[in-house]
């Protein structure tokens, strides 16, 4: 469960990144790399040598992606080459996808910042801080407390109501089903 919450969150961030980067794909590629490195806890080099995932992990990793594709067409969007699409169309499409993905995530997860302070505010890192919640950068020596600046308040998920993976999906995990329309005779 935790794994796919992280992945869904990371994907959401990617959409944001993409909007910010105005469709600059290399930048997004970097983001994807970073995302995988966070999830697997390995360095970015794992892109070139992916570790095979176990079958049950496979379904639980794909399920939130499948849901985001279903609700917001997120995978279609990430897989599409949009370099040639006019900005106006990208803007309209991204807004739509963003809005749908956002409402899905908001509906399914109770997301709160780890720190309630404003970003940019001075902050004290206390002794015994939780290194799985906080990443320190810059210059620090010895032991806490450290005086720092809150650059990113972090996100944590307090509760989620992501639906359980149905049997049929577990048997054959995928990102999106094909669609065929039968015309009226």
């Amino acid at each position, binding site marked *: 469960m935790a794994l796919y919450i992280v992945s869904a969150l990371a994907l959401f961030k990617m959409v944001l990144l993409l909007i910010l980067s105005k469709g600059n794909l290399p930048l997004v590629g970097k983001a994807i790399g970073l995302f995988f490195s966070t999830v697997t806890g390995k360095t970015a080099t794992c892109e070139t040598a992916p570790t095979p995932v176990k079958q049950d992990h496979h379904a639980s990793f794909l399920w939130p992606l499948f849901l985001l594709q*279903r609700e917001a*067409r997120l995978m*279609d*969007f990430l*897989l*599409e080459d*949009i370099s*040639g*699409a006019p900005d*106006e*169309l*990208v803007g*309209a*499409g*991204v*807004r*739509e*996808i963003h809005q749908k993905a956002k409402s899905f995530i908001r509906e399914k997860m109770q997301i709160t910042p780890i720190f309630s302070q404003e970003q940019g505010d001075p902050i004290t890192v206390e002794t015994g801080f939780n290194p799985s919640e906080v990443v320190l950068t810059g210059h620090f020596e010895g032991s806490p407390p450290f005086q720092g600046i809150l650059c990113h308040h972090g996100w944590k998920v307090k509760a989620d*109501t992501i*639906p*359980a993976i*149905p*049997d*049929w*999906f577990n048997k054959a995990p995928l990102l*999106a089903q094909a*669609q065929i*329309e039968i015309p009226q005779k």
Partner: protein
Amino acid sequence: MEKSRFMVGIDLGTTNCGLAYFDSQESSSPGAIAKDFEIEQIVQPGVCEKRKLLPSFIYLPGKGELPQGALKLPWGAEKQFSPGEFAKTHGSTVPSRLVSSAKSWLCNSGVNRHDSLLPWKSKDDVKKISPVEAGALLLKHLADAWNHHWGKGKEETRLENQEIILTLPASFDTEARELTLLAAKEAGLSNLHLLEEPQAAFYSWLGRHSEDWREIVHEGDVILVIDVGGGTTDFSLIGVEGEKGSLVLNRLAVGQHILLGGDNMDLALAHEVSKKLGAAGTRLDLVQMFQLVHACRTAKETLLSQPDLPGAPVTILGRGAKVISSTIKTTLDRVAVEAVLVNGFFPPCNKDTAPQEQTGAGFQEIGLPFAADPGITRHLANFLNQQEESFQEKVGDKKEKKKLRVTSVLFNGGVFKSTLLQKRILEALAGWQGREIQVLENLDLDLAVARGAAEFANVRRGKGVRIRGGAPRTYYVGIESTGPAIPGFPRPIKPLCVVPFGMEEGTEADVPCQEFGLLVNATARFRFFSSNSRKNDTLGAILDELGDDLHEITPLELNLESQGKSSGLVPVFLHTKINDVGVLELWCHGKTAKQKWKLEFTIREAKKKPVPG
């Protein structure tokens, strides 16, 4: 029956069902509202979630269409149908397998409502269901969901053992009421009471204002409840009257059944936009059309809440994997919303306006008698005009002439989330009456009916004030007048009043009139009529002619099988009864106590049998 633990209100809506309840084991403070029961349902293949509303749609999947177990609910085996959210979203892209608006079919006397005819116009390979079955399936789903949550192994908390109030449109005639009860019975819910939806909405308001309602409405006030749901529009008038120093509430009138609702509005907007797209050479498929209706609803809400915007974007994502490059982008212009929605559905009109009779725009589904005129304000004007005459004699202690003046309005239904549309109605009313109208605030436009129904269950236990209702319309049986037969002209029918307006629940009476001679072992048919504007006809009154203010209902039938007698005439008279549940029963009584036959609606061909006395 012993008092049940829960008091349950069920809103069996045209587009959404809801269920709310009070738990007698929890203490409740004055002004407390009923709790919404979250209904577990299939939302996508293999995914079951709880939602506050159960969309009143039923999907009938094709063979092998979905992965195994995709429609399985936590409380039972997989069925060949699925009600709720998945039915609504997936079904709109497979219309021939989707049962929708079943409730509107339930009161469509043009068809046999026990026939398997839904989905309407779909091919033979689909196993169709009847309107009554559709209602039963939705109610059964509610019951199963409740029992899965509350009733596991506990008889006393199962839904069928609770006190249940089931709501229906005020405009449902006695036959539609009976069919609704039958659907409930098929779903295993036989112990229930019926309540009109606008009244339920008002009970919800009363529940919230149990402490201060007497300060908000006053003696002589007339409250108009306007309930515009997804598929129907329903009007009711409630009078506040003084009696022995305290205030009492009387339901004064109900409107006719108008098949016109919020869904029509969204559909009309979507068609407007799709016309615009079509002119530019873009054609939409079913899935995109469904997306468009959705997108138009969002755009409409944006425009209605932000009066300065000239238009709102409408985006339909590309159908194939190329989601961005085949995205369709357009705008919903304010001009279109004004023309189609505001002026189309809420046009300013005179007090004397009558709704137009000709067929309306092309967004109608064939089969259901949709309102020809989309103008809700015109329907409202017509309703108030019809009521005006009888009202003069009804209100006022000395039967003095009194003008019908609406003093307060209670809006209900999702459509009125837009205050602009509320304003349109208020402006029309203020214009007709020459004075401002008070709005009774409704905080739960989508859920008030279910909550108000639960509130009514509370009221039935003596907590709170009850709206006096009685029969919402007058009923007549057609009597063929005697006289010489003229070739080419059928004998004129004279309506005989068998139920006067306001006849109370749980009462019965003999119809004072001449005896009929009925032939034994043959089928006797009675034409049956109702009127919601003739309120002063007394029991047994015979009208001279069949006026425009009478509406014909399915004929009543009596199959008089008398044992021991071979043939001949039996003298009978009519006996009328409104049972506890609010359903009308007409009986033929013979000379002896044993000779008692119930008149049945002829539409129920399959169940035609005499009821032994």
